[in-house]
Each structure stands twice: as structure tokens, then as C-alpha cells.
């Protein structure tokens, strides 16, 4: 029972981390129909940037965070203006390949070029762990879970009750019609990228504290976020959250119960889930099923 409880808590907390990353992806997708595989790359870049500010430069935390926010806004605007705005109206596949190339070669490459690419350690959150009954977990996991939950609530609220949220949903439905209705599509796209990059920045701080900052981090993050997003359905914010918990649980249970027999099965779990979800329920649990017309 203790093993089960431990795996369960760990799974839920891990799910929080995945939700954090997946929410950034869903956010961009909901507004601009771009499946953002570059999210992981951006995360690595920002994680290295934060480390650079905190450790070699020795800036105080608040200043570093402020600069991180500024840089991620700039990053989002640059991406939007120079890469994704010229591609408005292209098919999903084109933008998908572009984010793939960006996220797996260019952006992590830049991070490696600037900051060397060797693993680095930074501490933003208080380290240490707490024990509840038989279960022990570190504070960073708890923090990331709380932040992910908060972010999830903010996003749900944002899309449902604010005007820009409504505009985003409208633009994602059909950007041509939105434009003719007087919505500033370019601005909405830029906003979605800025929010996407900001959520990548949050992910960068959390993942960078939890694991060492290294260039593999981004690939890992995005690969774990993929089954989450697919399971939840690409457009669904609650779906991303629930999917994340499910995938986190699946991974820790696989780690606890299968790993003793098949070592390293845990790392394989996200890919297997990905293929299974795609085969069985491609539009996810809460996603919209597209009906094809001629």
C-alpha cells in the first residue's frame, strides 16, 4: 500500500509538471492553430538564461525574474513577427515542421552556443522535502504542482470570461472571418506567443530547479507533454490538466510496477501512450472531433 501511495503522489505531482508544459502548448494552439513543438527549446533557452543571470552574473532573484519576463516577451514577439506571422494561413503541417526544426535544432543550439551546454545547477525555490505519512516529496514538485494548478485556473478563466480569450477562440476557429469582423488577428497571434513564452519561462524556472539545466531538458519536456496534449485533446485546457495527471500517474506506476522486470520502461511509457492514444482516440478525451467536408 505504501508503494502504491508513494507512486500515486509522485504521479500526481509529476502530472503537475507536465500540465505546466502542456498548458503552454495548448495555449498557443488554441489561439493560432500552431502546434508548438518549439516549446521545449524555448524552455531550455530561458532556463539557461535564468541560470546565467543568477549564477555567473549573481543578480538578485527579483531582478533576474524581471529580466526573464522581459526576455520571454521579446522572444515571443520575435518568433511571432519573423517566423509565424509570415506563415499565417499555411497548413498545420507546415507550422508543425517549422516548430520542430526550431525547437530541436535552432533554439537549443543557440542556448548551447551562448552558454556552453554543460549541465548547470540553480536554486530558485527552497530545496528540501516534506513527509506526509509514508510519502516523501520535495518542495519543488509541490510548488510546480501548485503553480500548474493556478495557471490552469487562470487559463480556464481567461478563455471563458475575458474578451481577449474570446477573441483567441474566435481567431483559432477561422482567422480570415475574424479579421473581417474587425479582430486584430496579428495582435492576437503575437499575444498568444507571448503567453506561450511566459509559460515556458515558468516551466524553465521549475524544471531548471528540479533537474539540472541542460540541453536535453527541452526535448524531454516536450516529449512528455505530447501524450498529455493528445490525450486531453489539443484545444482543451481542462483536458491538458487531466491528461497530465493521467500521464504522470501512468508513468510513475509503470516506473514502480514494471521497471523491476523491464528496466527503463518508464522512459518508454510516454511514447507508447502517444501511439496508443493516437490509434484509439486521436482527438483526445475533450478535444473537438473534426468532421471533414469536401
Amino acid at each position, binding site marked *: 500500500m505504501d508503494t502504491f501511495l508513494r507512486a500515486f503522489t509522485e504521479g500526481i505531482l509529476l502530472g503537475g509538471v507536465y500540465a505546466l508544459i502542456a498548458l503552454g502548448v495548448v495555449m498557443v494552439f488554441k489561439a493560432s492553430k500552431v502546434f508548438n513543438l518549439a516549446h521545449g527549446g524555448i524552455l531550455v533557452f530561458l532556463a539557461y538564461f535564468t541560470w546565467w543571470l543568477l549564477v555567473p552574473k549573481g543578480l538578485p532573484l527579483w531582478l533576474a525574474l524581471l529580466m526573464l519576463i522581459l526576455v520571454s516577451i521579446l522572444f515571443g514577439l520575435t518568433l511571432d513577427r519573423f517566423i509565424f506571422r509570415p506563415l499565417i494561413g499555411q*497548413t498545420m503541417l507546415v507550422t508543425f515542421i517549422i516548430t520542430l526544426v526550431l525547437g*530541436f535544432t535552432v533554439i537549443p543550439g*543557440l542556448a548551447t552556443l551562448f552558454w556552453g551546454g554543460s549541465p548547470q545547477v540553480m536554486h530558485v525555490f527552497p530545496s528540501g522535502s516534506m513527509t506526509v505519512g509514508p510519502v516523501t516529496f520535495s518542495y519543488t514538485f509541490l510548488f510546480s504542482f501548485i503553480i500548474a494548478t493556478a495557471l490552469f485556473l487562470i487559463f480556464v478563466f481567461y478563455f471563458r470570461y475575458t474578451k481577449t480569450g474570446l477573441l483567441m477562440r474566435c481567431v483559432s476557429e477561422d482567422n480570415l472571418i475574424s479579421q473581417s469582423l474587425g479582430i486584430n488577428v496579428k495582435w492576437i497571434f503575437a499575444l498568444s506567443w507571448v503567453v506561450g513564452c511566459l509559460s515556458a519561462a515558468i516551466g524553465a524556472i521549475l524544471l531548471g530547479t528540479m533537474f539540472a539545466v541542460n540541453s536535453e531538458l527541452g526535448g524531454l519536456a516536450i516529449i512528455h507533454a505530447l501524450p498529455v496534449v493528445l490525450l486531453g485533446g489539443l484545444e482543451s485546457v481542462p483536458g491538458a490538466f487531466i491528461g497530465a495527471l493521467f500521464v504522470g500517474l501512468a508513468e510513475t506506476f509503470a516506473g514502480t510496477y514494471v521497471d523491476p522486470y523491464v*528496466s527503463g520502461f518508464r522512459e*518508454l511509457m510516454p511514447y507508447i501512450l502517444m501511439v496508443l492514444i*493516437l490509434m484509439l482516440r486521436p482527438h483526445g478525451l475533450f478535444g473537438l472531433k473534426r468532421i471533414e467536408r469536401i
Partner: protein
Amino acid sequence: MLPGGVFNTKYESDVAILRTKTQWFLLALGVIFLFLLPLFAPDYWLSQLTSLAIVIVAVLGLHVLTGLCGQISIGHRAFVGVGAYAVAILTTRYEPFGAGLAWVWTWLCLPISALAAGLVGLIFGLPCFKLKGFYLAISTLAASYIIVWVFKYEGFSSVTGGFIGLPLDPLYIGGTSEEPFIDLSSRSAFYCLAVAVMILAAFLAKNLQRTSVGRAFVAIRDNELAAEVSGISIFRYKMMAFFIGCLFAGVAGWLWANSQLRVNPNQFSLLDSIWYVGMLIIGGWGSTSGVFFGATFLKLLEIGMTDYITPWLGDMLPSIKLQVHVATNIVQGLVIILFMMLAPRGLYYLWERLKIYYRLHPYAYWAR
């Protein structure tokens, strides 16, 4: 567009791969040049050209799958890995004809590794029953990771060699390994083999486009619904595209394993799969010649970056700790993105435009 004064009066001439005598002559000249290269090219360029030829074989497979049938695969390098591992495992673990005829077994492994890659491709192509577009691309992305995991997995290390991988014996035909009848282990001999396979593969891919299967692929790519209504069994043809595409990858894997004489899991990373897709993009989707354009362009870019530009940059800016492969990756990635944004139809299309411009020369405005 045909050169001035040449008209298609028969169906045969309309579908001919090589239309005019000049084309025949130029192709023959090109092939002879390729096979004469080992006489004067330095070793470094020969080995680069060998790997280019192998990459072209693999990308031709991707061209059948993606360029013709429209199913994006971001795991093609892993399928190449399946082919390479198939030959490595079979030649190191089994010796069905005894040590004296080991070379026969190595050559028999060529169709076997092609088939192995094809079958694995079929497994990961299965989701195309329900999926298309980028959902399918994600499932091939998963394939890339799963296959490499299997190569790395310690439980199978008695078969696959785990992280260390497997060694292979040099390739030869006839005789024994000490005194081979035809020795293919030298750089120039292997180069000739790779080029021969490349030409054969290009011929097959080009011909596939002219068969009913190839036309069905193109129909599926252009409009799936219309293709289905016209009586093309979508699932069957998509699976066939996966199978054929991965057959090419398997052959490329066989060549790769024999050229490197060692396989290990790190050779089959996702990054290379991305470059394969990039080659297809740079060359232009859907034309066999485009594969040659794209692969050559990206390879030359890589060589130019690693050999000339990054050392120079490193001298200029020693403060930036410049890692050669990273700068190369960034530039290659940016070039692919620029091509997608500015010239989505690729280099081959630009080349065709150039030819049309010169054929119409003083009246070039007609081409618009």
C-alpha cells in the same frame, strides 16, 4: 517545359523519364563522371560522397512516403537504423553458410534488412488508418524514440549490443575474408557500390511515380477524399507507401552499417530524421530530382560549415565557446526554415524556372 522544337507526339514520349538525346548524353556523362571520381578525388571527399549517396537512398524512401503519398515521417532515420541493426545482428549472431561463405550471408542480408525495416515501418504506419497530417507525424516521432530505446535497452544487449553497438566485417564478394575476390572494403570501391545503389534506387523511385501505385499515392496526397471516391483504397495504399519508403530506408541502413563497420544507437537520432525532412523540403516535395538537389545542398552546407566557416568564426570570436556541430545545426535549421517560408516549392522548382527562363530567353515574360 520542353526545349524548343521538341514535341510529344506519342504517349511513350510523354511519359519518358529522359526525353531528348541531350538528356541521355548528359546523364551518361554524369554517371561516368561519378564512377571515375575515385581516380582523382581525395579520400575525404570520397567518404563524404559515400555518406551522401547513402543519405540519398534513405531520402528517396522518404520521398515516396512524404513527397508522393503525403504522409510525413519524422522517424525515418530510425527506420534506417532498423536496416542497419538487422544486418549487424544477423551477420554477428548467425552464420548459416559457415565462415567460408560469410559474404553470401552478408549480401543475403540486404533484402532481409530492407524487409525488416519495411515491416517495422508497417507497424508504425498503422495509425494512418485513423490519422493524417501532423497527428501521423507525431506517431512517427514516437517511432523514432521507441526504436532507439529498443536499440539501447540493456535487456536486449545480448542481441543488439546495448549502448556499445555491434561491429561488422568489411564487405567483399567471393573468396575468403583474407583473400577476397572483389574487395569492397576500400573507400573507392565502397563509394562505387553506394553510387550504384543510389542510381538504382533513384531509377526505382522515379519509375514508381509512373505506375498505377505511384499515381494512387499522388492522388491520396492531393485529395484524400477524392482519391477514396475514385476507388483507391486509402489505407492499403498508405500502408504500401510506408512499406516501400521503409524498404529504401532498410537498404540505406544496410549500406550505412557496412560503410561504418559499426552500429550504435546514437547514430540514429531524431536530429538526422529532421535533416531528412529538411532535405525533402529544400529540394522540393514530390520530385525525385528534388531529393538530389536537397540532399546535396544540405550536405554541402554541412561540410562548408564544419570545415570552413565555424573554424573561421572560432578564430574571430574566441570568447564564444564555439561548438562546431551546434553552429552547423543552427545554420542548417535556419536554412530549412527559410526555404519553407520563402521558397516552399524548393530548389528543383527554382532550377526548372531557370531552365524555362533560358529556353524562352528573349521572350521570358511568356513564362508568367
